[in-house]
């Protein structure tokens, strides 16, 4: 049974339809990357899975259950977590308060325990417990954003462009972290514009174009497919081969 199963999803904002009959699934402990040009609907797909917009057609099943009509906060309880590309932390809250909010649905005892687990996983956050997020660097924020989302120990973690605007070293660190989270048994959905790195750590990938499925397959096949590379991973061909 797939952890997440998006079936013929059609949705959009008001009159504007963004996704048309999109299919996507991810199994337990899979890393799946969604690539595609700007405006293809990648971010919208994640938002729809989180519950910010409801399908006009199709279904979203999580662990076999239809969650299409649940609110985002209800899907969090089911085991879905999401890290948006921008504004993915609470800037005026401290690091600790951000984690507390990540664990909003947890009982008090569990909350403390999970918080310590996140500090162990992200030692740099532990040094900054009381610090306001406003004053932190982009890399530290991205780490905090992931730690916040992991507080509920989700079965499905969705990351929207986790490496965007980060230095290459910071991006490496983020992807290592993603692999470590995956190794704990979690399914991960990543949306990436610069997808090379993300596909390298993924099991499978999807190509979205104009709000529709354009291609899907093993991540390695996508990386090796010259047509896809040229169309969607432009300019990275020579670099990866050399």
């Amino acid at each position, binding site marked *: 049974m797939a952890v997440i199963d998006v079936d013929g999803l059609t949705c959009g904002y008001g009159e504007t339809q963004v996704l048309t009959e999109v299919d996507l699934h991810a199994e337990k402990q899979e890393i799946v990357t969604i690539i595609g040009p700007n405006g293809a609907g990648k971010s919208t797909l994640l938002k729809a899975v*989180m*519950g*910010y917009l409801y399908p006009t057609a199709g279904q979203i099943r999580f662990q076999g259950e239809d969650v299409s009509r649940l*609110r*985002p*906060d209800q899907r*969090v*309880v089911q085991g879905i*977590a*999401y890290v*948006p590309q921008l*504004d*993915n*932390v*609470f*800037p*005026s*809250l401290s690091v600790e*308060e951000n984690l*507390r*909010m*990540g664990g*909003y*649905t947890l009982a008090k005892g569990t909350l403390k325990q999970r918080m310590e687990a996140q500090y162990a996983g992200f030692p740099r956050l532990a040094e900054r417990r009381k610090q306001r997020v*406003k004053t932190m660097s982009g890399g530290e924020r991205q780490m905090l954003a992931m730690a*916040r*989302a992991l507080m*509920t120990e989700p079965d499905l973690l969705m990351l929207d462009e986790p490496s965007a605007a980060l230095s290459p070293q910071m991006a490496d660190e983020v992807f290592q972290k993603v692999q470590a989270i995956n190794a704990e048994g979690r399914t991960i959905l990543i949306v990436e514009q610069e997808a090379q790195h993300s596909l390298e750590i993924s099991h499978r990938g999807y190509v979205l174009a104009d709000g529709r499925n354009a291609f899907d397959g093993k991540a390695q096949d996508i990386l090796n497919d010259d047509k896809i590379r040229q169309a969607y991973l432009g300019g990275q061909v020579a670099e990866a081969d050399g």
Partner: protein
Amino acid sequence: MAQIIFDSLIRSSTLALLAVGLTMVYSVLRFPNFAHVEFAPLGAYVALAGATVAGLPLALSAVIGIAVCGGAGILADRLVFQHLRDRSPIMLMIAAFALGIAIRETLRAIFGPSPRNFPLPLQAPMEVLGASVTTVQLVIIASAVACMLIFHGLLTYTKLGVAMRAAADNPNLAQASGIFTERIIRAVWFIGSAFAGLGGILLGLDTQIYPMMGFSVIVPVFCAAILGGIGSPYGAMLGALVLGFAENVGLSINFAFLGSLVGVDRDFLFIPAGYKPAIAFVFLIAVLLLRPQGIMGAARR
């Protein structure tokens, strides 16, 4: 001197209670709630009715007035603002204006236009640090300070308070954290409107109760909220403090030294008391020019 400080603190107390509620609703819903100040007469009239018609002790009827305002805030959201969540702030603002008029005129229809007083015996002022104050005035200051401290504790130490700040920061991310934001919004309406109700009761204790008592302070209340940076509760407290002092100090300064500069030779040159409301406007304009995000407000993208 001490008298000016006391008068300023009394003014700041009522302004702070009203401005904090206004700024709270703004922080999560991002629209200026012009109906907010109407919870002041609502709270005052309910407390008055409790104390006179029902014959309850004043403190108890004040609590009832405050609770009724909190509930009325939630009701206002349910009936009006909840249906307009995705609309532009202009739309919400106009709806708030309409709701404000409706509350104000309903109160006028029920209680009549003439000013009323809480049934309190006339009090002889006492001397405190060289200023003459009444017990009621001390109660006003004390209850406002207590409210601000409790509110600070709520925001800092409770799950609900942190969630309120989180929802103000980023409502979508709050939802992705498992927070049912509509419940937080309800709590914000309750607390914000209850504070306004208490502000109205205190205003009524200090002066009089009349239907326009909320609307008549709308400028200083908005000014205090904007002065501190709208959306920031601590900013609103600071803004109310600054404005309370500015109004009272402004009226007590002898501007004769300025007069001599422009050739007006007089021994006394005070701002007439009738111009007191203008002080808030002058401050508001100055703040909007110099620091549009307010004293405590973060610059928004």
